[in-house]
């Protein structure tokens, strides 16, 4: 019985590998196909297709509430889609077991909008946290690694500070250093520029591009800051109403004729997204009871 079951296992795993190889184009880090997701009966995505090439900076843009952060959570396996596939490095994220998912996440870094630093740990300990949890490295090596990551984001001198003592921009840079601690192959940024002063914004823009190229990572940025995002993204997807309404390089997207894309990229007050919230006729509303 034993040899037979082993044979079956080998065949199964070989078949699985074959299927995975077919599924993933090795040039792509993330492939999302026919994604459908609904939350509390509200449709967030219906049939979204997105490809994130390896080693590139890919941006996902769209107005507030269009599901950009939800998309990152679907890629990270924090949410399960109703239908469709989410492949990261060939692994179908929604089908992974709890342990497999946690292992897969060690290769992903995510920078949250709020920074999400642990408020009871100082800057050094925040960055050291994933290293302490996932590795058995000696303390001297952890110290060196943490200082290298902090040097990369320009905050080596702030290692003793607590998160409450940091400015918004500094907190995001510390969070970036922490996200880089395990040298992930994929890093995701959730609204990295929101609420930043021009200097912090400039620092973050430069850091994202430089780190992506220097560490040969794949980057996904979710943002609605058009100028900053177009300056560093290799490819952009614009999402609205649960689908991709435009995609291309920053240059081609600026020339895109689609009304939706133009309204978003140019920041026009009226268009497919109307200025006025749906209401009854204005004159009727004002004079209806008089007439």
């Amino acid at each position: 019985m034993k040899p037979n079951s082993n044979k079956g296992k080998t065949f199964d795993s070989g078949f699985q590998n074959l299927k995975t190889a077919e599924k993933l184009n090795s040039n792509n880090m993330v492939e999302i196909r026919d994604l459908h997701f609904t939350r509390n009966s509200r449709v967030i995505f219906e049939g979204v297709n997105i490809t994130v090439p390896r080693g590139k900076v890919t941006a996902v843009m769209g107005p507030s509430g269009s599901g950009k952060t939800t998309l990152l959570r679907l890629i990270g396996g924090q949410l399960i889609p109703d239908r469709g596939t989410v492949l990261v490095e060939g692994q179908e994220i929604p089908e992974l077991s709890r342990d497999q998912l946690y292992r897969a996440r060690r290769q992903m870094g995510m920078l949250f909008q709020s920074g999400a630093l642990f408020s009871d740990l100082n800057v050094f300990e925040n960055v050291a946290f994933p290293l302490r949890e996932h590795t058995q490295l000696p303390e001297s090596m952890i110290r060196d690694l943490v200082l290298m990551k902090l040097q990369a984001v320009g905050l080596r001198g702030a290692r003793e500070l607590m998160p409450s003592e940091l400015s918004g921009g500094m907190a995001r840079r510390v969070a970036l250093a922490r996200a880089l601690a395990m040298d992930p192959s994929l890093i995701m940024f959730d609204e990295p520029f929101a609420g930043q002063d021009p200097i912090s914004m400039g620092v973050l823009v430069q850091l994202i591009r430089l780190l992506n190229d220097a560490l040969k990572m794949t980057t996904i940025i979710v943002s609605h800051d058009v100028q900053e995002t177009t300056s560093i993204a290799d490819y952009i997807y614009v999402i609205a109403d649960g689908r991709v309404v435009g995609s291309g390089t920053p240059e081609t997207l600026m020339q895109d004729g689609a009304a939706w894309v133009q309204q978003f990229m140019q920041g026009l007050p009226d268009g497919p997204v109307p200025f006025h919230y749906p209401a009854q006729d204005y004159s009727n509303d004002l004079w209806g009871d008089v007439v």
Partner: protein
Amino acid sequence: MILIKRMQLLGRSGLSFMGDIGRASLFLYQALVGKPDWVHGFGRLVQQLYSVGVLSLIIIVLSALFIGMVLGLQGYTILVKFGAEHALGQLIALSLVRELGPVVGALLFAGRAGSALTAEIGLMKTTEQLSSMEMMGIDPLRRIIAPRFWAGQISMPVLALIFNCVAILGGYTVGVEWLGVDTGAFWANMQSAVDFYADVMNGIIKSVVFGTVITWIAVFQGIDCPPTSEGIGRATTRTVVYSSLAILGLDFFLTAVMFGET
């Protein structure tokens, strides 16, 4: 129509309640089952024993002292009418060991440690600290919830025992030192009336059950709260209310099982 609507509402509430119980049970299972991390786990447990247990000591000790003193005073004024003031030690010890120690200790524990646990975990959720932990490949249920749960489990019986000891000392101070009950009679009656297994152990079992329920409610409310300041406030209130009701309800049930036949 009104009757049907009310029945629908009742049905919905019942389903929602059962859903909550199911989610809370699954949550507890996921937090506790799995490979324990002994290397880091012990340090985290000690840290939580400090914040959940040691920091609750002041309120437990002070409350126990006053409750013991009130018991001594009230007990004496009643017993002296029957010339039975020598039984004061017995009255104080049995009241405390069987009921007041575990129950009042648990109510105080729910108010201090339970609410703090819910607020802490709720704030971690609101500031996306738990999400960021998940995205680092670290399970927050094992890293954050499990040590807090075990710390609550361990702390509660110890706090109840401390409560009993301090309250007995409070009763002794009032009864013997102030009101003049004979010291020998006070301790001898207590010693002969209190049975280690029937009284002390049953009291400890009660406090273990209360500790489990309080910390379970507290950590679940924290992780299940809507990530807003209002959500944290409501979750904290729910922890104290649900825990208090659960303690009093379970106390009746446990008392009936433990002492109902005697």
